């Protein structure tokens, strides 16, 4: 009887969330209409257009950590950082000590981390030091939607997570990407260090947008209310520098924005799309959007990472049979459980022109159940640079075949797939 009830409850969750998916917007007539420009579509989905300088790209977590420490040390007025996972470790002591020192010196430090952190089941769990100690130094720490016994009352809301990763320092320095602030993202010095990316650039316009979004959001979460006018923006940072068009997406849980944006980009594609999805748990609408683009003659390459974590890997393997329905060049990294550093990067390159970066995984969870960021940069120069990076990753992959997918489609893998589809 108990087992029956549990099964019914689980199926209810699946039906509820599958029924509420926003990804149908990827296939809406408006998104698919070739007569509507990409700019119009992005504007319709609420993405402001901004100008940004050419970014410095960090592909190594240790290098980003060193740069981050430098940025924190130089902060004079305020610093805002958001990460899905953040915890200290021996290797990260300098970063967290610098943050604490800055807060003690009077710099306003706002630190947002998702409440799932204590349940980090990556290699980080062996190096995890909670960061609540930061509050003793005056850091304004906010744990989004923490998971605790009492909060079970909030039901399915516990599935809603803040997955954004961004940094603003003094309205001057900006960074967006996929790196967390935990051991495996920026602390480890061996194969446990994930392969990922962070993009640092100047953009007073994007600073304004981020602050306009952040301040009211913070005030809905915390009693330590803040005022927008207390965060200044430095407009001198882009003077004399070449800038590029970009659109910023700030996706809220249960919002249709990510679906509209990614659907519009796929509909815009004329000849090529290159994708690093991280956890590729696409639902039927997402698969159909890719299939339609491929059917129009767009050459689509997608690289699935080799995940050392057996649970995730088996879930991904189960999913490949559905992914093959897209008819695209679907590849998986050759890897082994002992040495492979996890490819955590999220990237999409459209027509060697639009580069999409940020925290958004190409999957059901990111498109429906999470706060996410994405920046669409219109720069052929940057597209060339990241395509080179993509090709290096692509070179170490093998095609996913029907035979492989058939072998992986086992009942034993199904529970791991289900868990990862909602929670991955």
């Amino acid at each position: 009887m108990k087992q029956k009830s549990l099964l019914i409850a689980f199926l209810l969750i699946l039906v509820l969330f599958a029924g509420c998916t926003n990804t149908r917007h990827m296939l809406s007539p408006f998104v698919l209409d070739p007569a509507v420009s990409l700019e119009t579509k992005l504007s319709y989905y609420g993405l402001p257009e901004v100008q940004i300088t050419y970014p410095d790209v960090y592909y190594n977590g240790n290098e980003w950590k060193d740069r981050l420490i430098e940025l924190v040390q130089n902060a004079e007025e305020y610093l805002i950082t958001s990460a899905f996972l953040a915890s200290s470790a021996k290797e990260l002591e300098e970063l967290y000590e610098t943050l604490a020192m800055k807060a003690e010196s009077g710099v306003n430090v706002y630190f947002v981390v998702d409440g799932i952190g204590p349940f980090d089941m990556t290699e980080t769990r062996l190096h995890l030091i909670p960061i609540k100690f930061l509050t003793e130094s005056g850091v304004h720490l906010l744990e989004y939607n923490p998971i605790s016994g009492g909060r079970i009352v909030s039901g399915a809301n516990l599935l809603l997570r803040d997955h954004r990763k961004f940094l603003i320092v003094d309205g001057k320095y900006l960074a967006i990407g996929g790196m967390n602030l935990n051991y495996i993202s920026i602390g480890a010095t061996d194969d446990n260090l994930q392969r990922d990316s962070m993009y640092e650039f100047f953009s007073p316009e994007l600073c304004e947008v981020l602050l306009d979004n952040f301040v009211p959001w913070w005030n809905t979460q915390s009693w330590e209310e803040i005022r927008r006018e207390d965060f200044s923006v430095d407009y001198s940072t882009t003077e004399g520098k070449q800038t590029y068009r970009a659109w910023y997406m700030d996706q809220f849980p249960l919002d249709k924005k990510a679906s509209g944006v990614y659907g519009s980009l796929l509909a815009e594609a004329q000849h090529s799309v290159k994708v690093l999805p991280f956890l590729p748990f696409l639902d039927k609408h997402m698969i159909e959007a890719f299939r339609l683009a491929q059917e129009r003659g767009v050459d689509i390459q997608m690289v699935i990472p080799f995940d050392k974590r057996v649970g995730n890997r088996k879930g991904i393997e189960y999913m490949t049979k559905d992914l093959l329905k897209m008819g695209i060049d679907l590849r998986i990294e050759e890897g082994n459980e002992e040495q492979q550093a996890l490819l955590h990067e999220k990237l999409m390159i459209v027509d060697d022109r639009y580069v999409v970066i940020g925290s958004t995984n190409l999957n059901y969870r990111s498109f429906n159940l999470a706060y996410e960021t994405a920046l669409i940069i219109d720069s052929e120069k940057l597209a060339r640079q990241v395509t080179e990076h993509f090709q290096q990753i692509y070179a170490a992959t093998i095609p996913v075949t029907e035979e492989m997918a058939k072998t992986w489609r086992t009942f034993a893998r199904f529970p791991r797939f289900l868990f990862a589809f909602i929670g991955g």
Partner: protein
Amino acid sequence: MQDFHDFYSRLLEDDLLRRYIPTLMILFLLLSPLSARSLGYGVSFFGQTIVEDVDLTTSGVEFSLVYKPYSFKYFNPSLIARTAFGTEADGAYRIPYVQMGLSVDLLRTINHKFNFLSGNVVAYTPALMGSVHFDPRRDCTLFSLGFSPFKLSQKDFWYEFFSGFVTYDLKTGEMDTWGINLVRYTYLFK
């Protein structure tokens, strides 16, 4: 009022309510992300006794609905409806009360001794509640006065510990019932 009483009696006799409460709760929790904001719901564990009839002592679960239109620092009002469901001394399932009333947070401060209980900043908001208290078992309506001395609030959550209440029969002026809510969690959709 008799109809109301008969309705609940039938539900309990048929054992329907007890059987379906877990299902209803699961559905409610699943649907909550889709609900409007500024409303909330809560779950509590209560115990209560009636001064003149200890056989009607009840303990169990209390469910509440909250409407909090404002966020004043002092005397912040909320409209609250509550219903309890529990077992009496003889093991029978009963609804001992339905309450509807006004709760007022007397003050809100983040400078207090309980911040260690939470990772996030939490406000101390002791609250008083006055409500109409209906006991469907006895078909009587009373006035209830409650106090939550240990109520901690976040923007989206209330945590209440050891909240007490007493009810008075306004006709006789005598205390009728007293009870305690050991812990109450209230989730506000925001």
